[in-house]
């Protein structure tokens, strides 16, 4: 028996298969760059392309040479340290003020809600080059250009919209009467907030913080404008490497970053499942 109902014409069947194959082709397009870069990073030759040896799967054509190079190069080591340092502090700052703001924003009494939401989310939308130019002009006056503090503030700015989105999402469907019950049972507002609201939004807060960290970890335009030579980060090092002399060390770094993204995605998925469990009241 045919898989399709009898009224399907040949065109309908073709479009069914067409859809399936198109979808898989698009998935291939999405994954291809990531899949290509991983084996290339093990290339023993200093090229960005597959050698004959690699295609024959000759073990001598593969090596860890470029990975060793990363950790023996002071510039890369400094860049890795800087990226983590700036990313962690930017994410912490963004998470704290972003979470508090999201709590206020999800209250039904919040005045000018729509306008303020649009303003708070606008760092996601305004082109980075405009933010970078403006920050360069403005931060110079406070000696923030070429300093860690300047970059942390700049990256926290970019991270706050993600925290707002994730925490607001965690708060929708939050039953206010739980909080009110705690208040009427005599809890101080802060204690009620800490004991009732915080556990419910924790997964949202953590994933917002992760988003903020990844945003900072991956950001390069603001770094190009605001960082001094001492604050070079991984993306900046990659950017100048790609512009000046292309070196397969970049491919090795890229592969390590893909591993970071996979870990990040798995954590998010874990948090999402946990949030669902909390929602359903298990």
């Amino acid at each position, binding site marked *: 028996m045919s898989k399709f109902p009898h009224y399907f014409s040949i065109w309908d069947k073709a479009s069914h298969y067409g859809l399936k194959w198109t979808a898989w082709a698009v998935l291939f397009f*999405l994954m291809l760059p990531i899949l290509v870069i991983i084996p290339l990073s093990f290339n023993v030759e200093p090229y960005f392309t597959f050698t004959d040896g690699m295609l024959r799967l000759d073990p001598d054509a593969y090596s860890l040479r470029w990975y060793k190079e990363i950790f023996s190069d002071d510039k890369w080591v400094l860049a890795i340290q800087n990226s983590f340092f700036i990313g962690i502090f930017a994410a912490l700052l963004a998470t704290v003020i972003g979470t508090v703001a999201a709590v206020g924003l999800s209250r039904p009494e919040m005045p000018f809600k729509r306008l303020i939401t649009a303003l708070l989310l606008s760092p996601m939308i305004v082109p980075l080059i405009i933010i970078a130019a403006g920050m360069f002009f403005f931060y110079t006056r406070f000696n923030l250009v070429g300093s860690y503090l300047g970059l942390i503030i700049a990256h*926290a700015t970019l991270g706050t919209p993600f925290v707002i989105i994730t925490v607001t999402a965690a708060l929708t469907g939050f039953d206010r009467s739980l909080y009110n019950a705690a208040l009427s049972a005599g809890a101080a507002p802060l204690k009620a907030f800490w004991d009732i609201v915080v556990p419910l939004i924790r997964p949202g807060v953590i994933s917002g913080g992760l988003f903020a960290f990844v945003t900072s970890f991956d950001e390069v335009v603001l770094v190009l404008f605001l960082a001094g030579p001492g604050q070079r980060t991984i993306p900046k090092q990659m950017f100048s490497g790609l512009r000046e002399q292309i070196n397969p060390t970049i491919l090795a770094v890229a592969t390590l970053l893909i591993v970071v993204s996979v870990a990040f995605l798995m954590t998010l998925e874990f948090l999402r499942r946990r949030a669902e469990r909390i929602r359903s009241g298990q």
Partner: protein
Amino acid sequence: MAQKPIILSAEETVSARRELFRRKFMAFAFVSPLLLFLLFAFVAPISTMLYRSFYNPTVAVLIPQTIAAMKTWEGKSVPGTDVTAVFAAELKQLAKKRLSGQLAEALNRVRPGLSSIVKSTARKMRRAEDADLKEKGTELLMEANGVWAEKSTWRAVARAGKVYTVDNFLTALDLETNESGSIQRREATQIYVALYTKTLRIALIITVLSLLLGYPLAYYLANAPSKLANALMLMVLLPFWTSLLVRTTSWIALLQTNGVVNSTLIWSGLIDTPLELLYTQFSTVIAMTHILLPFMILPLYSVMKGIDPSYMRAALSMGSKPVPAFIRIYLPMSLPGLSAGALLVFIISVGYYITPALVGGTDGQMISNIIAFHMQQSNNWELAAALGTLLLILIVALYWTYDRLVGAGNIKLG
């Protein structure tokens, strides 16, 4: 059962209002730390950039006395020696402090060609004695170069000396003011309008491409069994959360002359000589489509998940063919996701910088790249600010549309 209307006494109304106000204030108090932070870290910097596009102090700071002396000059003839001699003296001071290059650059922006003249005149003034400059500064200036005897040169100096100006916007729109003071198309070079048009065109191509690629995939995922859909969704989210530079690097590896794409094409016998794929508009469009595609897929997928399949089944069971049923039933219902995704992709691609800078070559540069160029290489910060302001106006208009249609709070992160 109808609810009994609640009638409050005057006292209760007052206290209810007070309570509402207290709650509004509390909600606002929670948001205020972030508002204050963004005011300093984000709004003030952007306002500074807007201000810089009008504010043009360079010349007025470099030759303050000349500009002050020119206040009374009406521009009908070459200014008198009260201006020219002061200018000669200030030029000498600048040459001594090695600042004449800055002045030359600033004047050159108002009148192309003045740069080398200002520099050479400054060198000659430097050699002159102070006393001589006071006595016959005007003559020395006219001897140094004939352009100082032309009133149009002094008009340019006066123009450049204005602290607040719309000149940068005129330049950014390929306009200029002519002798009589009216605005006309710039005769010399037409760059920026063409660049804005090109940026919008590239953004539009990227949007259409992501729609063509994203719609079928989102449809397939939304109608696949949920286990499969969740697994495949990871293949959308992994590239989405992979570093932008990693993805751009991959496209360089794929598209370069001896890269994976060319090698595959040659190996398969489709072409004999490698194609020039990298450092073109083509590579910009491909790499950016790849980077922005998830922004299209995520809102489409979430809208399509909510479309009840029974509508399509009803249309089919009543005799409609699948394709017309899709166009008349499904497509209109998926429009919210489609407009959200398309606007988001368009907004982000208009202001994109990194990918065009790395894979675009000269052909694939967009407006952000020129802003960066004026910030970092030509040091024409005022023009960069004016170009940025125009870009910002465009983005705000698009963002406003997005907020009306979709609501800014509904951005999907996966």
